[in-house]
């Protein structure tokens, strides 16, 4: 089963504020330059889409109401939806903040057919949260996601084993989960536009053209997907810990850029230390105003999660870059992660440094992030434009609490 909350952020805001119900609204970040994160169905009728800037959205729908999002609301609501799902299956995979898969195999004897379970889930979400969702039921994740996309909002679509061929025959390949615009164009060049055509296309040519995924593409065309539902806690370990921020205005002053990098380094270091992770590689990401985005990396001699080490590496990367224009977005991350095994540091200075970081993290853990902070940041502690990443998860290192 795949569950997709309908126009999630916008629906939560409409549930909160009765005057917004039935009206075209767009949820945007707290910073002026952030884009539309979700549009209500009323706004979508006018062509308002996720990713539009405010000017484009307003042009598409003059009566559009912008609502500044509150990520705490969405994170808590997502966790409550997952709690409902957990009452029906032990195998729940969080795909994003508003999407999840549930393996209902073996649940029917106790809880009813998948359709009955889905209706019950929809009713509980509606009555406890005032929200609607679309649910797709199918023999595998690929088809379940396709099914949930077929009827929005408030849909419940079942694709049975015997109906798969008919459902896919004339379906455009771009409707399949995992086939994006670029792959769609490449397939079109081969004359493949529908899933039926993909299923019938010679595997050898797909392999030659797309490499290792060629075989999988053919299976997708036939609606075959063997990927398991991966329950929370059993996912792959995180490969990186990072934070990025869209700046309130484009910045070319390097000192100002460095202040943002210090704040981002502290966020990365704090989260990594909280989960006892260290990274051997630091990555700096920059985006120019024309949205050209690039990253540069630096390897460390030994894994680190100390804010100062991360910051100094980011600065050293920055110093090697000749900025062509001002910068719109900055990001810092660490990767090649290892578990921080807390090996006793040899030198007293390093031990004192560890105790200092522990003390700072402990105070901030108790009284809130940045309660104790770097003096450099004191006069420049503007709130960042917090955005919930697609990699967000309800627990573990991927749970990022953004306001």
């Amino acid at each position: 089963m795949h569950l997709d909350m309908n126009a999630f952020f916008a629906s939560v805001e409409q549930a909160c504020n009765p005057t917004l119900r039935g009206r075209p609204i767009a949820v945007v970040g707290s910073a002026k330059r952030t884009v539309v994160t979700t549009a209500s169905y009323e706004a979508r009728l006018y062509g308002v889409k996720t990713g539009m800037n405010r000017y484009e959205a307003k042009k598409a729908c003059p009566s559009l109401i912008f609502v500044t999002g509150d990520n705490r609301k969405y994170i808590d609501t997502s966790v409550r939806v997952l709690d409902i799902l957990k009452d029906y299956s032990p195998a729940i995979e969080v795909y994003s903040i508003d999407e999840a898969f549930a393996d209902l195999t073996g649940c029917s004897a106790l809880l009813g057919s998948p359709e009955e379970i889905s209706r019950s889930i929809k009713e509980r979400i509606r009555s406890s949260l005032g929200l609607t969702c679309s649910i797709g039921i199918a023999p595998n994740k690929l088809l379940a996601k396709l099914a949930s996309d077929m009827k929005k909002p408030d849909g419940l679509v079942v694709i049975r084993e015997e109906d798969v061929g008919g459902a896919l025959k004339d379906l455009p390949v771009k409707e399949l989960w995992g086939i994006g615009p670029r792959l769609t164009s490449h397939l079109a060049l081969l004359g493949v536009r529908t899933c039926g055509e993909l299923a019938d296309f010679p595997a050898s040519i797909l392999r030659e053209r797309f490499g290792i995924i060629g075989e999988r593409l053919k299976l997708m065309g036939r609606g075959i997907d063997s990927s398991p539902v991966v329950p929370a806690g059993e996912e792959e370990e995180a490969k990186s810990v990072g934070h990025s921020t869209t700046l309130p205005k484009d910045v070319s002053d390097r000192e100002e850029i460095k202040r943002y990098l210090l704040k981002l380094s502290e966020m990365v270091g704090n989260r990594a230390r909280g989960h006892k992770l260290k990274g051997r590689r630091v990555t700096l990401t920059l985006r120019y105003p024309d949205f050209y985005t690039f990253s540069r990396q630096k390897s460390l001699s030994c894994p680190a999660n100390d804010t100062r080490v991360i910051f100094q590496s980011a600065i050293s990367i920055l110093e090697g870059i000749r900025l062509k224009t001002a910068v719109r977005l900055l990001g810092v991350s660490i990767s090649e992660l290892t578990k921080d095994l807390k090996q006793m540091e040899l030198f007293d200075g390093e031990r004192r440094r560890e105790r200092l970081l522990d003390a700072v993290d402990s105070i901030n853990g108790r009284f809130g992030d940045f309660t104790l902070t770097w003096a450099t940041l004191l006069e420049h502690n503007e709130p960042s434009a917090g955005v919930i990443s697609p990699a967000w998860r309800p627990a573990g290192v991927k749970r990022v609490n953004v306001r």
Partner: protein
Amino acid sequence: MTFPEPWEACHSMATEINDHIQVIAVFDNGIRPAKFKWRGRTYPVKEITYTWGSKDGAASLVHFSVTDGETLFELVYNASSMKWSLERTE
């Protein structure tokens, strides 16, 4: 003279308040604010439109989006300090 950006005229008008307030609440299978006093005036809670939780450091916060029939308020209960605040109005 500066003109408002085209979107500013139609932004949902939330005003940050962050005042401590006095609240009469029912604690029964959860918390339910019934009325609150802010700046000398008492407001009845006619409808709780939404609730959600968050953390501020170690403190658990419970947020209530409530209306007195005219205005939307966000009330916050800090479970550690057992204090109420009015975070914003719409």
